[in-house]
Each structure stands twice: as C-alpha cells, then as structure tokens.
C-alpha cells in the first residue's frame, strides 16, 4: 500500500481490493535494494511470456475458423470490453455506450473510406479514414463522458444507455449519412506490403497488435499518476477534490481514453464483420460489452479478454450444446449467475480457487477476518 491514492482514499472494501492489485504492482516497480532485472522492472513475469507465446503461435496451430472467428473476434471484442474495464474498474463509471463509441468509429470507417454504398462513402485512403474516425469517436466519447459525469454513480449507466439507444435509432432512421436499416457492407482491412490483411492469419495479427497495445496502455495508465488519481476519484471523489484534483477533468479524460480503445476495437470489429448496420450497435450489443467485461472480471485488464474468449466460445458452440436459438438465455443465465455469485467475474473465481489450493491456511485466516 504505497501509492498516494491508497493512502489518501481508503474507500470501500470491494474497491480497495482493486487498488491493492495496482499498489502491489507499483511496489515491484519501486522496490528498493539490488537493481532488478529489466524484465522485472517493467513488470513482466513468466506467465506473461507464456500467454504472449501462446497468442503468437495460436494462428499457426489453429484452423482458419478458429483463428478468425474465435481468435480475432475475441481480440476485437476484448479490446472494446477493455475500454469498459478501464472506465468501470479503475474509474468507477460503468458506461453502456462503449459499443456505441465503437460503432461510431466503425460507421466513420464506412463513411469516410470505401464501402459498397458509393453514394455516401467518401472514398478516402484507409489510413486517413481510420485516423479521422478514431479521432472523432474519441471526441464523441469525451462528449458522452462530459454529459454523464455531470451526474453520478448509477445515473451514469442510465444516461449512457439512453445515449447509446438514441444513436442506434438515429443510425436506423437516417438514410442520408448512416444509410438507415441497411448500413454499409464490403468494408475490410486494406492490402498493404503485398499482404491481404483481410485473410485470417494477417488479420489475427492486426487484432493481436491492437489488443496488446491497448492492454499495455491500460497497464501503464493505471500505474501512472493519472491512473492513480483516477482510482482515488473512484474511491472518494470529495477527498480528491479537496486535495486539489480536478475531478471532472479526470473523469472526462478517462472517457476519452476509453473512447480511444473502443474506437480502435470498433475499427477492428467493422473490418472483421466486413459490414456495419444499426444491428451492430443495438441494445443487445451494448449490453454484450458489459456482459463480456463483467464475465471476465473488471479488476484487471486481462479480464476483458478472458470474458471475450468465453463469450465468443459460448456464442459459437453453446447453441449446439443446448437448445438452438436460445443463446440469449444461456448468456443471460451465465451473466446472472456470475453477477449473483461471483461479482469479480471469472478472474474472481480463479483467485478464490487459487488461494484455496495454494494457501489454505492463509485464505482461512482471510475469511475469518472478513
């Protein structure tokens, strides 16, 4: 417990646990004594290397279906969910509009770039279209944030929900810009350096690159002064305010960062699907992002990707195991069970299992303390 924010804001029990994790990591960074290895200094552990190696080797072992439909989709979905993990887990603001931000960027790619609907698409080069859409989506996210941080806590979820559904209806009813119900199709990653990035393996690596960048950005941010201040604001905004922090500015900035992540995820998503329509950003999809983030656990950025993998696997295979077409029942039931019995998601379950297996006495002690 050596971070400034922890000292300043004890906060609620559930929340300090999230902080403790961040605090523990910053301790390894700042540990005095003999000079640590470079790998330890930037916080790389053996398990990180194992996961990285597995992620890199995966497309060469798996079939194209598993590489593209499961692997790449999980990474894109995980990146969007990561934005919610950052916002909710570290900022304490659960926004339902993250899919809307992603969809905003996706629509941007379709409108500025090329698509099947040439009357609307402006046909800009792909890098310009992507850059402008991601930028605009980030600004949009900051605006949504500014609107919702005027109120607090549970209001956030309602306002972001209303914003998201309003955008959905706008996209569905407007034909001059969003091409209404139909949306856009034939959107894909470009061909570059002689490689068609639409192909499963290249696209997987594009998605993996973006996901890793997003993951390390979040890992870095939550240990940077900005992230620590954000966690302090999550735990006790009033105290942070009296310490001289600009609470609203920090929150809006968190929305912008999350918006950037979601926007990149949105571009990946639209490249993955090859098309975007109001169905991509409807209420079910907005809630799916929340399900993914909560399923994995919002305490740690990796939770978003764990949740995404489970979600995508369920989506592809659960319907075969159970009753066909009852995917929503399955995923809703799983979500309900997680929320009711393990509020920290699968990571929370894993932590419980691990502590019981490795240190039975310690966990007993902890339980007694609680």
């Amino acid at each position, binding site marked *: 417990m050596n971070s400034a924010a922890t000292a300043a804001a004890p906060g609620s029990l559930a929340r300090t646990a999230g902080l403790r994790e961040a605090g523990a990591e910053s301790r390894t960074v700042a540990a005095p004594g003999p000079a640590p290895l470079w790998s330890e200094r930037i916080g790389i552990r053996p398990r990180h290397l194992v996961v990285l190696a597995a992620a890199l080797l995966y497309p060469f072992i798996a079939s194209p279906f598993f590489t593209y439909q499961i692997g790449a989709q999980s990474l894109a979905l995980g990146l969007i969910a990561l934005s919610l993990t950052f916002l909710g887990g570290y900022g304490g603001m*659960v926004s339902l509009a993250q899919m809307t931000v992603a969809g905003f960027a996706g629509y941007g790619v379709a409108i500025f770039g090329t698509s099947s609907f040439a009357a609307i698409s402006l046909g800009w080069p792909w890098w310009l279209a992507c850059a402008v859409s991601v930028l605009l989506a980030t600004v949009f996210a900051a605006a949504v944030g500014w609107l919702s941080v005027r109120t607090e806590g549970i209001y956030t979820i309602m*306002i972001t*929900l*209303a914003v998201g559904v309003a955008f959905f209806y706008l996209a569905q009813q*407007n034909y001059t810009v969003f091409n209404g119900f139909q949306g856009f199709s034939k959107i894909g990653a470009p061909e570059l350096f002689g490689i068609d990035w639409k192909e499963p393996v290249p696209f997987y690596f594009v998605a993996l690159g973006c996901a890793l960048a997003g993951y390390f950005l979040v890992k870095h941010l939550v240990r940077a002064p900005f992230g620590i201040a954000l966690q302090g604001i999550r735990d006790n905004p009033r105290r942070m305010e009296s310490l001289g922090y600009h609470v609203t500015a920090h929150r809006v900035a968190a929305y912008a960062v999350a918006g950037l992540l979601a926007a990149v995820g949105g571009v990946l998503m639209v490249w993955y699907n090859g098309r975007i329509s109001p169905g991509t950003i409807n209420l079910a999809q907005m809630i799916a992002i929340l399900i993914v983030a909560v399923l994995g656990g919002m305490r740690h950025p990796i939770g978003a990707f764990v949740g995404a993998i489970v979600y995508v696997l369920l989506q592809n295979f659960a319907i075969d195991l159970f009753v066909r077409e009852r995917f*929503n*029942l399955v995923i*809703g039931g799983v979500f309900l069970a997680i*929320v*009711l019995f393990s509020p920290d998601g699968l990571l929370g379950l894993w932590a419980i299992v691990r502590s019981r297996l490795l240190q039975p006495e310690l966990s007993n002690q902890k339980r007694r303390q609680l």
Partner: protein
Amino acid sequence: MRLTRKQAALWLLFAGPIAVFSVWAVVDNAPLYFKTLLNGLTLASLYFLVASGFTLVFGLMRNVNLAHGSLYLLGAYVGWIVGENTGSWLLAVAAGFLSAAVVGLLLQVTIFRFMEGQDLRQTLVTIGISIVLADLMLWGFGGEIYTFDPPKWIYGSTELPLVEKFPTYRLFVLLAAIVIGIGLWSFLAKTRVGMMIRAGVDDKKMLAASGVNVQLVFAVTFAIGAGLAGLAGVVGGTALSISPGEDTRYLLASLVVVIVGGMGSVVGASIGALLIGLAEQFGLAYAPTYSVVFTFVIMFVALAFRPRGIMGKAG
C-alpha cells in the same frame, strides 16, 4: 411569482420557438396539429404509466430496475392470454397488473433484498433478468405481433372539434393515465403507506429507526411499481400492439422520462412523459427522420441545466 431576468430569458429561449412553431403549424394545417397534439398526449400517458413505477422504485430503493421493460411486456402477454380466454378486456388489465406485480414482488423478496446498497450490482442483476425474461418470452410467444380487442364502449372514434375524428380508445388512455396519476399522487400524499414511502425516499434509516418495517414498504412499492408496468403493458398493447422489442422501447422511454423529469418524483415523471411524448409525436409528424433526435436534445438540455432532472432534488 415574479420571474427573474434569467428565468425570463430561459422561457423565451425554449418557449419562444415552440410558440412560433405552433402558430405556423395551426395556420398551415390545424387538424394535423391538434391530432398530433392529442397523439402526443396519448403517448405521454403511456410513458407516464410505465415511468411512474420505475421512478417510484428508484426513488425508494435506489434500484435502477432495467428489467422494467420486461415487466411491461410480461404484463402484456399475460393480459393477452387472460383476455383471449375470458373475453374480458378489464380482466386482462387486472391480470397484467397482478402478474407483473407478483413477479416484481418475487424479485424484490428473493434477490434485491439481499443486495441492498449495492446499486451497481442490482442494476447488473436487472440487466441479466431482462435478458433471460426477454428470451423466455420470445420462446413462449414467438415473434408474432399480438393485438387486443378493447370493449365496445371505448372502441371506434369520437367526433371532436378541431381534429375531426379521433380514436375513442386513445382518449380513454389519456383519461386513465390522468385518473391513475391522481390516484397515485393521493396514495402517496394522503395515505399512511404513501407517507411511509415518501419518508423512505427522503431518509431510509430514519424511517427504519422509527419502527416501520422498511422491507414491507419496499416490497409494497416494488409490487406497485412493477404492477403499473404490467398494467401499462395491456393498456399500451391495446393502443398499439405487443411484440418482442417493445420491452426495450418502453425501458428507454422510462429512462429518458425519469432522467428529464427527475428520479424518484411522480410529478417529475408526468412532466418528463409530457415532454417526451409530445416531442416524439411532433417529431414523427413534422420531421420523421429526426424524431429520436428531438428526444435526445430534450434530455441533453435538461441535463445541461438541471443534472438531476426538472423535479430532481439535489444531494
């Protein structure tokens, strides 16, 4: 009451354009204008019926019940079954109210009671419940559109000055909403239970300390709130129709209505419902592409000037 200069300026800013539009619209096509006005009022009545339960539950329990739309749809379906089997529309309305109230009561007693004070978790649970309920109802009732037959005495159309013909049933909805609104208001303002609910909205701990069984008050409120959603399901299903997806629509409507009107206030819900219902209908009649945007603009303006809604209390 004297207006300050700032208030006067605000009124001028918002009421001015609306007045100019109204004059133009009446001169241009009076029947269309008044018909849209009545349609807007009907829609506002429906929104009020759904949103008043939502706001009541939130005000007392801080529980954002995102399954409120599912309760609307559930009430509508159960009401439809009862109506089909008995042939009585009034029984269908009663069944809609009772079924949703019972489900709401069960949710409160078996789940929400155990997570008091955990706002976010409660909200997540309601999201899960709404997904499961929506899929179960889709399973049971399929994707078809169901319609009700209202009784003869409110069927057909009525001659009205200015609008020529207008469906009698919609006038009935308007009347019913006003009656229920006044009933709800007098229940909250005049009765003992209503007093307890209001006291609970203001200070839950103090109410418990003065010897009231707060859990009972919670259960009653939740049942009434859920029941109103179910009742609105049958009433609204008769005015329009019931099909999967209506739950989302009415959930969004209640959300916007209570955000604009102020959480926890029944009066706020009625003001919010009026604004949103009228904006939606006028939007549909005069600028079909952007009708949703009007709703959004109202929400934006309300939040920018009064972050807690028009009738919301600070703190």
